[in-house]
């Protein structure tokens, strides 16, 4: 997956649909990113943080018991083992370094499941910056553990009470806050959405997932699969395999399937596939996984999907809950509800023409499930 066009487009998707007040900040971030990305010193700093702080490279674990049960070779890329418990730390460490280079003293972030918020709070603590995290009231209720983690790390968590009270409205509110604080604050966006350069910047910072996995797999897998909300862990994973023959599968939540059920639209600063009505009012997503409870998808996914290079599937909440239990009891790994979407697809597809017996599957397990225990306790005996 290469660079977007100068206007930040992947095919017909992407762009920079932001108020004039934010255009200079987006342009400055793009310039800082281009400069940093060409600077070996930046890569050295980032690489050191990844190994010494974030615990990279993360393991590649063959899921031996599930593989035997399903008749496929299932390899798990263990982002759940990264510091803070998900892949979100990869992006945030890079953006915090960029923010520091730009002289920013504060990070503003949106969060759904709270994993990106925790990662942002963590980086802010490490870099001596202030962190303000916007989180929907409904997500605060269902991911309370992560709210406590953010606050323990010294971040301010601001409840968002507008609209769906989930990630969509948290993103609106974070962007509004950025307008008023653009001089000293960096908007540390958590996924591969948002105005140019974010979809590109975040994918490049998550590319480490796919590159490590490629080096860790003896041969190119037949299928590469990851869950997709905005789509950052999938984009990072796909980046390592897009130039191979591997099939790329993104798994959406049935209630937040922008790629599967959406149509082209502009929201949160970018053009992509969006769940919306006939007028263009954005619809509220509905998923048990707060991190996938989002009516849009990163523009590069929309491009990969419409050109056919990647395929997108959906699984429903019940399949997801069953997948959490199955993975826990067969491999001793409790994954996040978000990551369980990818597992659920493998469970459903294995042995069918979509995933024939004998296939090798690389699955990115984007995060661990500790945050979901309270939510799961009511659902699973």
């Amino acid at each position, binding site marked *: 997956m290469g660079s977007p066009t100068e*206007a930040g487009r992947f095919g017909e998707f992407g*762009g*920079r*649909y*932001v*108020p*004039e*007040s934010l*255009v*200079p*900040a987006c342009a400055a971030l793009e310039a800082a990113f281009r400069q940093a990305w060409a600077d070996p010193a930046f890569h050295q700093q980032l690489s050191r943080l990844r190994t010494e702080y974030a615990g990279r490279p993360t393991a590649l674990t063959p899921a031996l018991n599930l593989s035997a049960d399903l008749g496929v070779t299932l390899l798990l890329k263990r982002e759940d083992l990264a510091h803070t418990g998900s892949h979100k730390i990869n992006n945030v460490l890079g953006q915090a370094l960029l923010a520091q280079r730009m002289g920013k003293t504060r990070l503003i972030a949106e969060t759904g499941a709270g994993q990106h918020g925790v990662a942002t709070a963590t980086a802010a603590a490490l870099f001596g910056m202030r962190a303000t995290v916007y989180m929907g009231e409904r997500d605060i209720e269902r991911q309370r553990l992560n709210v406590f983690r953010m606050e323990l790390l010294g971040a301010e968590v601001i409840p968002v009470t*507008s*609209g769906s009270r989930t990630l*969509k*409205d948290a993103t*609106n509110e974070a*962007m*509004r806050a950025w*307008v*008023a604080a*653009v*001089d000293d604050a960096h908007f540390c966006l958590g996924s591969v959405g948002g105005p140019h350069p974010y979809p590109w910047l975040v994918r490049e910072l998550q590319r480490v997932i796919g590159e490590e996995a490629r080096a860790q797999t003896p041969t190119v897998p037949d299928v590469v699969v990851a869950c997709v909300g905005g789509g950052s862990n999938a984009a990072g994973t796909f980046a390592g395999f897009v130039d191979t023959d591997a099939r790329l599968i993104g798994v959406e939540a049935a209630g937040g399937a922008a790629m599967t059920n959406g149509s*082209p*639209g*502009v*929201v*949160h*600063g970018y*053009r992509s596939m*969006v769940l*919306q009505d*006939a*007028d*263009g*009012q*954005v619809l509220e997503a509905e998923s048990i996984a707060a991190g996938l409870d989002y009516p849009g998808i990163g523009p590069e996914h929309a491009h990969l999907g419409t050109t056919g290079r990647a395929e997108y599937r959906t699984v429903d909440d019940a399949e997801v809950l069953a997948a959490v239990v199955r993975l826990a009891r067969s491999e001793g790994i409790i994954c996040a509800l978000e990551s369980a979407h990818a597992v659920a697809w493998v469970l459903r597809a294995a042995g069918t023409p979509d995933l024939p017996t004998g296939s090798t599957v690389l699955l990115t397990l984007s995060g661990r499930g500790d945050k979901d225990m309270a939510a799961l306790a009511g659902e699973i005996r």
Partner: protein
Amino acid sequence: MKQLNPYLTGGITPDWTDYLLAYQEAGADAVEIGLPFSDPMMDGATIQQASDQALRRGVTIDSILADLVAVRAHVRIPLIAMTYANLVFRDGPETFCRRLAGAGISGLIVPDVPVDEAGRLEAAATAAGIDLILLAAPVTAPDRLAEIGRRSRGFVYAVSVMDTTGERDALAATAAPLARRLREVTELPVLIGFGISTPGQAAAAARAGDGVVIASALMRRVLEGASPDDLRAEVAGFRAALDQVDQEMPVARAHPEVSGYRR
């Protein structure tokens, strides 16, 4: 003459066009009609609430435009639509602009379409006879400011403050410098908006520019249940403040070919 453009969220109440006519009677030069969007990221709490209230009533672009057509015979001042990119691009900007024009709307403001993304919309607006009004911000660099001044139609919208829409205690210190910079690069009227909350603030802004946009201060009153008569008085207060400024500054700036939104 200093220009007064009050804002009204389309469909906010069943009788919302009565507010439009009240604005006109109170001396508005043009009215900005908000086509509500589910995710208005440039708007503060008041306009968000106004948009939510309208959408909860079930209004659509079609219903708002139909309401405007129904009162068309009584409207003597230009109407300007203000909305977000997703509504504009949903069926294509060409279709959208034609629909606006068909309802008698002659201007369009889309805060999340900056000049770099405006190309196709600009062409569609021109073809439909709609003025695409561009926004400039305090952080806009000189070269961009010149481009915005050159490509905007009708007037240039000076975003007075680095913030979302919403009432403020005082006119932002960034308002007057931006208006002055704009007036150096364009012959178009420069209207100042965002956060202008009182007639006094409107007068201060009008001294720096050619007029003002008033939104949250009016929509708060509508949300509180104020009547069209109440709003007529409110807008008349802003009108009087601007007229006072005109008397202080008897020599108005000449805008010979761009008088569409002026009295």
